[in-house]
Structures are given as C-alpha cells and as structure tokens.
C-alpha cells in the first residue's frame, strides 16, 4: 500500500510519529544505507557498526527532516557525518593505543581479520585519502556530482576534481599491480 508513497512523504509521516511509515521507510533504504556505509568504511564489521549507530539515532534525528531536500540526500549526509565521527574516534584511539599492550594487539588482530575479507578494490579505496574516498563512495552510489557536493558541503568543481584525483590513484595502483 505504501509502495507508491515517496521517501519524503514517508519521512515526514514518520517525523510526525507514524511508526508504520518509519518502518517502511527504513526497510526501503536500509540496503542502500548499508552499501554506502560499506563503501565509506571498507569492511563489513565497520559498516555494520556504522549502520547500527545510524539506525539507533535515526528516530531522534528524523524530526529535523522537513522535506526540503531529497530524503536520500539527507540520509547520506547523516551517514557521511557519522562515518567521519567514527574515523576521528578511531584515529585518536590508534594514536593513543600505540604500543599499549592488549588494546593494541586486539586492534591489530581486528585489522588483520578485516583485511583478509576485502578485495583489492576496497583495499585500494582505503589507500585513498578520506575526502577522496568519501567522494568516490557517493559518486559510485549513483549520486550526481551536484548531490555529492551538497552532501559533503563542497563545490561541484571540487567533487569533479576529487573524482579525477581518485581515478588517477586507482589507475596508478592497478598499473603497479599489473606489472607485478
């Protein structure tokens, strides 16, 4: 019955307290959300954690969605920001944990586990700088440059430049791998 209703309408109904609308909306967007989370983080466990963070907080955040942008754009912005936050936390953790016994060991073991799971593309994307990776993840997710610019809060030109930079990096990486 809700299949024809747009994401935006569902989101506004959910913001007004309609639980069924909220469930339907989340069912609809969950897979895309998880996909983006995976592209942003580069590992399944990380992506699951990130998705969980967002799911847990989404009900509270939703009251702020007033339908002035596409729901997917809004949700992607939420996701990208949450991913930034996680990265920042991990960066400070790994800095602090360097050489600090068990925590460091646990972290390394975890990093090894995940690296076994990803293929070369993910590994290559992880090699990119954070801003390039975010941009690429969005554009690969059928976002236009304009939409990605909106989500990341930079100009469209910057997005185009970042994409070409990212492509250069990936091409260079592939070239090295082909040679070996």
């Amino acid at each position, binding site marked *: 019955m809700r299949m024809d209703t747009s994401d935006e309408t569902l989101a506004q109904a959910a913001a007004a*307290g309609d*639980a069924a609308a*909220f*469930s339907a909306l*989340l*069912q609809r967007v*969950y*897979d895309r959300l*998880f996909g983006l989370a*995976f*592209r942003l983080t580069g590992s*399944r466990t990380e992506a*699951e*954690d990130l*998705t*969980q*963070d*967002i*799911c*847990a*907080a*989404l*009900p*509270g*955040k939703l009251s*702020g*969605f007033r339908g*002035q*942008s596409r729901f997917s754009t809004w949700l992607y912005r*939420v996701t990208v*920001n*949450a991913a930034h*936050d996680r990265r*920042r*936390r*991990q960066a*400070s*953790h790994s*800095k*602090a*944990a360097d*050489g*600090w*016994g068990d*925590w460091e060991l*646990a972290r390394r073991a975890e990093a090894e586990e995940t690296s076994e799971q*990803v*293929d070369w*593309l*993910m590994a290559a994307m992880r090699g990119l700088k954070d801003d390039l990776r975010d941009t690429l993840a969005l*554009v*690969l997710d059928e976002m236009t440059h*304009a939409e990605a610019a*909106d989500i990341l*809060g*930079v*100009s*469209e030109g910057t997005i185009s430049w970042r*994409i*070409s930079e990212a492509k250069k990096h990936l091409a260079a990486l592939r070239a090295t791998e082909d040679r070996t």
Partner: protein
Amino acid sequence: MTDDLDDLKAAMKAATPRPDPAVKAAHLALAEKNFADLQGSRDGARLNSDRPRGGLWSGVRKMFATMTTRGGLVATTAIVAVAFVVLSPAGRDLLSPRDLTRPAVVEEREADEAMGLQDTLQETAEQMAEPALEAPAVAMPSPAPQAPAAELATRSRTLGQTLMKAAPADMIAPLPEADTEAFANASDNPLKITAEEPISTFSIDVDTASYAVVRNSLTNGQLPPKDAVRVEEMINYFPYDYPTPAAGEAFRSTVSVSPTPWNADTRLVQIGIQGATPETDSRPPLNLVFLVDTSGSMNQPDKLPLLKQSFALMLGQLRAEDRVAIVTYAGSAGEVLAPTPASERETILSALNRLDAGGSTAGQEGLQQAYSVADGMAGDGTLQRVILATDGDFNVGLSDPEALKDFIAQKRESGTYLSVLGFGRGNLDDATMQALAQNGNGTAAYIDTLSEAQKVLVDQLSGALFPIADDVKIQVEFNPAQVAEYRLIGYETRALRREDFNNDKVDAGEIGAGTQVTALYEITPVGSPAQLTDPLRYGQATTVAGPDELGFLRLRYKAPGESDSKLIEMPITADLPAQADAGFAAAIAGFGQLLRESTYLDDWGWDDAIALANANRGEDPFGYRAEAVQLMRLAQSLSR
C-alpha cells in the same frame, strides 16, 4: 574516463556485500524500538541544567575494569560507540546538520547532561537509548532551509568547530580510556567575593608531574584529559627570575602585580617563593632507598629501561658519603642492593641493570621494606628518603589507600621522606602518586623522557632531595575596599581551611633547596567593569588597614625537623613592580586554563597565549620555555 567510472561502479557493486539478514533485522528492531520510545517520552522530556552526580568516566572505567575478556571489551566498546553517537552532543550534531548555529552555551549544558546520563551505560543498550533520545525530541530547533552549496561549505566548517567546542577529544574518544589512568583534580577554584570571603588559604605545591603528563599527551597527538591539567604544577615547572634569599634565610617571597593578559580590567598578583640554595658541600649525607616497581607492566621502553638510565644519571650527582639501597616490589618484595656507598658506582650500576620486570604489583609490601631499610641506614645528621619509581600500578596490596597514606605520614614524622617518580602512560595512577608524595613530604614527578630525568634528578636534585622548609602554607587576606573579587589560579587540590593556617599539626607542602613556587591570583579592583557580581545593597564596607593595600600575605613554614612554625608577613600593594618575566607565568597559566577549558578567559585564545609566551621567553638557558611554546602550538592544532 566515463567508462573507467562505470567499470568502477560495476566493480564496487560486486564488492559491496549484501547486508546480513540477522544484523539487518536487529538494526531495524533497534530503530523501531527507539522510535517507539521517542513517541512515548516526547511529553515528559525536559532539558534541565542540573548536572547529575557522578563522573562520566567512573562508569566506563568500572565497566572496563570488570569486563576484561576480549569479547567483553569488544561488546562494551560497541555499546560505548552507540552511546556516544546517541548520547553525546557530538553524535547528535553529527546526525543533525541543521542546528549548527545553536550557541555553544547550550551545547555545554547538554554536554553536562549527557555526561551524567552516561553513567547508565553499564546497564543494557536498550535502557540507555531511552533517556538519550528524550533530549533531541524537545531540543531540536527548527531546521535551516535547504542551503546552496556555498553556504553548506561554510556550515560544514562550523560543524567542525562546534564539535570541538561541544565535545573535547577526551569525551568523544572513548577508547583511550581502556587504560586505567586516574588523575587527581577538582573543579576550578571559583571566583570569591572579597566582602564575603576575604581570606584564601592553600598549601604550596612544588610538583611538576602535571606538566610532563600534559607534554606526553600532546606529543602523542592528544589533548590531555582535563583532570590531568593542574595549572599550578604547569606554572611551577618553569624557573622564574626571583631574587635569592638573604644569607641565613630559608627562602624569600616576592609579590608583584601586573595586568591580566586575558582581561584588561583585572590584575594578576604573582606570589613567588625562592628557596635558598645551601652549599652542596655542606649538605648532610644522604641515604637513598630506590623502591622500584618491577611488575610486568613496567616492561616497556619508557618505563624500566628509562628508569635505569635516569637513576644512573642521578648517581653522578651523589657524593662519596651518600649511600644507596635498592628494593624492588613485584609479587614479593626484595632487597636487590644492600646499603652501598655511592662511591661504589659499579656495584650500584650492575644491581640496577639486573632489574627485570615480571609478576604482579604489591606496592605496600615493598614500601614497608624500603622504609625499614631506610630506618636501618639512618645515622647522625643524615637524611633518609625513599624514592618510589612506578608506573602507578598498585594493583595488589593497596586494598586500603587510607592505611597506606597513614603509614607514609607516620614515617614522615620519623624523618624519612618519600618522593614518587612516575614512568610511562597507560595505567599511571596520578591520584595515588599525588596522595603518597603529599603525605610523604616529597615531590611527585613524571618522567617521560631522559631530558626530564635530567631536569628532575640532576639539575634540580638538591631541591628534590633536601628540604629547607616544611609545611609551607600561604594565606592571603584581600582588602575589600580595594579588591572586589579574586580567584586563585590552580591549587585546586591544595586548598586548606582558614583555621588550618595557624594549626601546626596540619600538613602542607615542603620547599626543597633552590626550588621555586609561584602562585597567581586574578583580582578585580573595586569599581572595575570586569566585576562579575553586584555589590550588596546592605553590605558594610569593612575596616581598611591601609588604603593602598590590595591585601596581606601571610606565610607559615617550619624548619625541617621542627614542630613550631614561623610566620612571614608582607602587604600586597598596587604599586609593586611587575616581575620581569611575569608575562611567561601568565602565558602558562593561560595555557593550563585553555586546556582545562576554563570559563574565565573569555575569547583570549591559543594565539594570544603563544604570542605572550614567545614575547617573554627571556634567557631560557635550558630551553624549557621554547618547548612550552611548541606544546602550545601542538595543543592549538589538536583543539581545532
């Protein structure tokens, strides 16, 4: 090029896994539950400014302490991660880019609230989510309209700034808390109104451990925990240009008044105490007992190996009639080196080098043995001191910290003092270190590098080891006719009751040979626009001793070994010349307060602190001040 991108898209599609159905179901259930909770609690939720009792980290730390398996840690970390996104103002803002223009004040209030809420963390994740989500429901201001890209760019920049303001790194970075560090500190000394409370009393503090901890944090790329910052210890880390005491005097106090860098309408009163430097040749023989923590946790490059190097440096400073013993504690306490004259350098060095880390920590047993060795070494006119070197881990044996403090205090009465050297980070128990050193009439220093060992154990050895005045207390009475308000900067952990000043039974800090102590008051003159409180309508102007006096300084101390104190008094007048390097002390005071996020600095920031410190570097023969400027620059970058 488009083909490339299409290839990438296809590859990415293939690489992206399908979500795990079980995980997905769990996430959806969580979201739905939170949604339902949010609807139910919408009416009841109220923001309030009351800060719930209990600290943010006590709960988390307890949780880590009780859950030590890897699985447990992973599970709890996941809960913390969720909680941080949900509970912390940072998480909330991350997920709602609309309300960036909300003033920082509101953020802080919410931060307080979120901090209190975090105590419920140990409960289940579901229980947590409930109180967490109440706030946003009522707190969300109306959204900004869809903005053009340019405006968004500005906003995403403010996002970063707002985040830093709302949630300092130590708040949103839960993982470093996996260690078990504990820091002693209290809230900033509040502003006092002279008419109501004209007298301020505190014990002096010659420790410098806090500065080294701050330096270690910053050079590791992290802002130090707020509680690790004790402003007075940072100020006291640096030597200032105080006049030396006259012959026969134990120390000399200097008072100066200068403008406050962060507030044009207030003044800084700087009280400086310079201890006398007795001729090293005439000093009494010294009996040192090194009490070395050799527990397993000491087995890291910046702990036991650094300790060995540090003690070797110190040996060079001892004289032939001094004696050294080494006691270790690790599971069982043991005397590694019987009392040996310092002239037998080789014997001492080889005993040091044989030290090996392993086993658990039993601090108390070792301490008792060290004291009994020290008692055995006591002779006519000798000084005994136990130097405890540890990473702060008193896991086993310290079931009752109070009993240990009493033990040390009792030994202090019998003439054996205790100094504590902290090594390494991770489970540095700063609070216990402080407590032990304060009760043992010694200093607590934190050694993070060999050059710090050089400063503490070589350059300032005589000060660290030879007390020239015990129980030094400072009492300042401000004149309400001249000073409307005052605030002691730092010394939060050293406050004394007014009546304790004249009570010689109450313990206070000691001054070693050649040491310096600095205390800063920020005062607001009567009629100054900076006055934060309104005068009492029915208040009586109290009697005025001398119209020109800002206040009156009283200082009590005991000569070592004596039980009756002596009193030094001097008036503080507005026309006292400013100390030549007052600017540097003020810059460091500003540095410490910025790290503590003190509210008194207004918009005086890192740039001002750096400029002020740079302008007042003076001679700086050891390069300490240049290093401080570097640290300020680091802290500035990290706090962005």
